[in-house]
């Protein structure tokens, strides 16, 4: 009895040692490249921390400065909010319609999926350049409107309203394929028996989609909504390259503000503080989504 316990104890110790051996690269890496930066970021946010030069402790000054003395911060918050409110519903709804439309009975389904997925996997910079060309005053959009219909369109990237609209439009186009694949994967996992039962009960077309398919993939819709929301709060490359945040600061979202403060103006402390605000917003919104999911997400078990 005692010998077996002892043996088991030493075996457990051996296994613990082996496990730590297996986990140590991940643990060291995580400590060095995540835990340390997170801690450091908290410290930096309460210091006046220039890229080069002396650092001084300033307490909550950076945070106060963001809300009171930083002319671009409130607009950046507003831009991120506007972008998210426009982008998330558009992207989720359009990709859902597409995933349902692209059902198993569509010919060339695989090729179409690849097509919709191309902008997701190519560098964002390349996507943005294509749109930037089309949105020039003499570009494709205005060219078609003038050449075919005799209507002249506004100079999209020079107008605050249109610039934001186009950043959203370009992003929806770019991200469509990703959510579409998430929904396709969920739709394919629906048991055939349920769909058959529903169609025997006379559910067809829109009714079948609205009352059966959508409720049954609501966990996937929930997941996609949260991920899309988080990624839209992190938007950077599209406005940075398409509009440079302009005109003025009309399309400068939070991450671009952070990047600019940190690496254009060299104020790493202020940038770190703004990054924590971003983090708090993401956590708050995700938490709210989880609280709301009980109302509309239907889980199987």
């Amino acid at each position, binding site marked *: 009895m005692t010998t077996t316990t002892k043996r088991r104890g030493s075996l*457990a110790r051996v*296994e*613990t040692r082996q*496990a730590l051996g*297996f*986990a140590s690269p*991940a643990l060291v*890496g995580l400590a060095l*490249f*995540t835990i340390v*930066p*997170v801690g*450091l*970021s908290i410290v*930096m946010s309460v210091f006046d*921390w220039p890229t080069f030069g002396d650092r001084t402790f300033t307490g909550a000054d950076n945070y106060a400065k963001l809300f009171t003395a930083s002319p671009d911060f409130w607009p950046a918050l507003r831009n991120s909010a506007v972008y998210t409110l426009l982008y998330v519903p558009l992207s989720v709804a359009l990709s859902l319609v*597409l995933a349902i*439309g692209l*059902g*198993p009975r*569509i*010919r060339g*389904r*695989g090729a*179409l*999926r*690849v*097509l919709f*997925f191309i*902008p997701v*996997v*190519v*560098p*964002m*910079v*390349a996507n943005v*350049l*294509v749109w930037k*060309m089309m949105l020039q005053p003499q570009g*494709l959009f205005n*060219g078609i409107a003038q*050449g075919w219909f005799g209507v002249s369109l506004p100079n999209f990237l020079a107008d605050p309203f249109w610039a934001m609209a186009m950043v959203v439009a370009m992003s929806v*186009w770019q991200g469509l394929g990703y959510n579409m*694949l998430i929904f396709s*994967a969920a739709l*394919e*996992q629906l048991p055939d028996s349920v769909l058959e039962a529903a169609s025997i009960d006379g559910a067809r077309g829109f009714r079948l989609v609205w009352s059966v398919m959508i409720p049954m*993939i609501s*966990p*996937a819709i929930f997941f996609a909504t949260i991920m899309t929301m988080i990624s839209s709060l*992190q938007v*950077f*490359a599209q406005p940075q*390259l398409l509009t440079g945040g302009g005109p003025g600061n009309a399309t400068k979202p939070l991450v671009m503000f952070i990047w600019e403060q*940190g690496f254009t103006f060299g104020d*790493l402390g202020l940038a770190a503080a703004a990054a924590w605000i*971003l983090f708090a917003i*993401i956590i708050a919104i*995700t938490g709210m989504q989880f609280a709301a999911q009980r109302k509309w997400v239907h*889980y199987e078990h």
Partner: protein
Amino acid sequence: MSTETETRTLLLGADDEFVREEAGRRGAVARTRGERIRLVIAHVFVYLAAAVFVSPLVYAFFSALKPNIEIFSMPPTLIGSQVKWGNFAEVFAYGPFWTYIGNSLFVGVAGTLVVLAVSTTAGYAFGRLRWKGRDAVFLLFLGTLMVPAEVLVIPMFQVMQWFGWVNTYQALILPFAFTAFGTFLMRQFFRGIPFELEEAARVDGAGPIRTFLQIILPLSKSSVAVLSVFTFLSFWNSYLWPLIVTVDYSTLGTLPVGLASFSGLTGTRWDLQMAAAIISMIPTTLLVIVLQKHLVKGIAMAGLGGR
């Protein structure tokens, strides 16, 4: 037995999907007239949407073949007065695009290898071995998934300065190679492998390293493949971090930052910018075409299919 079949189904997933697609195609024979009409409408809708969707890419491709002065001709044309394939060659003369592509390839492959090594070993420790504090440490791992990269880049840049790593390959590869996502994915998959297989090997005297290398890893090829593809893509397309940590784009620039700086330098040469954009799109587009059968399965398997 049933778990064994499950593993086999996962491994043979491609054939499985093929069978299902075949079944779908057979189902394409519409039974009633109403059904046939509905199917035609669905095809029209989907193909129309696809045509609208792909038109920017098609237009960009043809613009890349035009003389620059005709890019903004009014009314717009698809094909210019001459077809200048030379624009593509000129891109390589204007900017070091081979360097950009090479850098992206190197950073992507090296980063993926690091991620694979780290996540499979850690996934094994968390998913298959029993040790004190395992679940608490794993929870910590999961917690770090919530911290977005945007929060990390500012302090990470400072850490890179302290290491003297600004403008180096290791700064492009290592900082984001230890995220918990891969470990989480591998752990989830490893847990599904029947324990009997491992125990049999243990009884035969195989240690954990041997079981890991000869039993667990070979059974996990499909999920390792999924992780590799997603990791490679995220390195390949990463923009914010390379933009911050690279100073000398002409030698260390990856494709995204290289393309961005190329566009800044060439200003109004839209012909060259479109050619460069198309060139940048080719590698990963080919990758997706090659992997198309596994796309949906990969997304579903990466835990992205539902919860």
